């Protein structure tokens, strides 16, 4: 094995900052294509207008580097650390610094709440005007093969958080039972989301924390142009509601679904997180930093 040089904190911060801006301002190719496919098949005129407007918005955002949505979201970090990656002291702080810089550049929405525990809950001391004060959620770290530090930034908006749910499902040894109940939660909420078409993200794990982390991993990995049998089924169930874009009716309630199943415990219970991601989500971008040669 060749010896590797060390990544620098500055390189890590710069990469994280650019990654955040890309996540917040850019539709990926699979998102553009999913919207185009939906426009081709959508028969409801009002629904088609919404879908076309979202494409127009994404084109302007890409060209002018504007945020896709004014709710620029809470940054969630998924960090995959290569077993041969050589990281400097303070590398995680460097990632956080990059997130702060990215929020200043994009810019992010200045929505960090001031004050003590109670004052923050009651939002009685006002807000910070600096978008960099929006702290990222605790990062998820995973080991990986190779010499790269892979940083994925996901920006999670507030609307889907009102409609998401983590709870237990008695599986009765049937995937169909689990996903039917999970889809039922989403179907109850989807008409109130407002920002449809959604992408349904689902994590199945052993604890509430793990199921949420798996849901986030589903958002990190999922592709709208590669949907497995169960993801297609979830999408079909949601589209049968005919909620449609913005709740205005039509056949495009969901553009797709992302499902991640983790290790599971011997039990009759599965813990499931369901999050109906909004029409600009999943906003994500990944950067891979190889450790330089010596």
């Amino acid at each position: 094995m060749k010896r590797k040089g060390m990544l620098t904190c500055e390189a890590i911060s710069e990469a994280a900052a650019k990654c955040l801006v890309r996540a917040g301002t850019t539709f990926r190719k699979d998102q553009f294509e999913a919207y185009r496919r939906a426009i081709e098949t959508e028969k409801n005129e009002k629904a088609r207008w919404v879908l076309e407007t979202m494409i127009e918005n994404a084109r302007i955002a890409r060209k002018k580097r504007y945020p896709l949505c004014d709710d620029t979201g809470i940054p969630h970090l998924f960090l995959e650390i290569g077993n041969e990656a050589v990281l400097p002291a303070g590398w995680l702080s460097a990632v956080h610094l990059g997130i702060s810089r990215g929020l200043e550049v994009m810019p992010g929405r200045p929505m960090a709440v001031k004050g003590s525990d109670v004052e923050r809950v009651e939002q009685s001391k006002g807000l910070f005007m600096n978008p960099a004060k929006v702290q990222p959620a605790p990062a998820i770290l995973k080991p990986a093969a190779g010499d790269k530090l892979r940083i994925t930034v996901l920006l999670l908006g507030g609307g889907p958080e009102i409609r998401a749910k983590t709870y237990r499902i008695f599986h009765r040894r049937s995937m169909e039972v689990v996903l039917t109940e999970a889809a039922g939660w989403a179907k109850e909420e989807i008409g109130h989301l407002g920002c449809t078409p959604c992408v349904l993200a689902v994590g199945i794990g052993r604890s509430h924390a793990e199921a949420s982390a798996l849901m986030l991993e589903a958002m990190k990995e999922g592709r709208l142009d590669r949907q497995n049998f169960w993801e297609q089924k979830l999408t079909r169930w949601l589209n049968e509601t005919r909620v449609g874009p913005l709740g205005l009716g039509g056949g495009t309630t969901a553009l797709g679904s992302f499902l991640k199943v983790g290790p599971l415990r011997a039990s009759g219970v599965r813990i499931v997180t369901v999050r109906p991601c909004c029409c600009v989500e999943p906003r994500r971008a990944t950067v891979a930093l190889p450790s330089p040669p010596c």
Partner: protein
Amino acid sequence: MKGLHDRNRAVKVRTPVDEETILNLKAGDLIEIWGNIYCGRDAVLPKMAGLIEKNALDSMNVHLQGAVIFHTAVSIAGIGPTSSNKVEIEESIPILSKAGVKIHVGKGKLKPESIEALKQNNAVFAVTPPATALFAAKTVSRRLVAFKEEGMEALYEINVAGFPAIVAIAHGKTIFTRSTA
């Protein structure tokens, strides 16, 4: 076949909006708003409702007769609809409508009580997608009106040229699907 996206099919609405314009709007109409729009959400709309009850809003140079209110934050990241069915926002709709607001713009389905209050006051609810980049291209100017301490949740007034929305609730009728009731 021309779709709804054809700008010629949008009803142009200028602010302040008169009673007749609202009477002629139907659920499902695509509209383009021109003129001044107030922007507020969870923090500021209940404060406005409180000031209306005390008859104190005029002294702040806020005039709601014929007004349009967009349920949004206003920040350096732009504007975009927040969920209008959040309790503090939806609770403000009846009193603001009674005070003269003619078009509430946001997103998400509203309760039957809100639909009735809109009808009683000849006001409508319109929805618009979170098209922040597009809105930036259609916003001419903006100014802070009141409640600066609320930051992005303060009351703002923006001037827009062709702000797009769809009338979702008008005269007791809604285009939201029944399956989400």
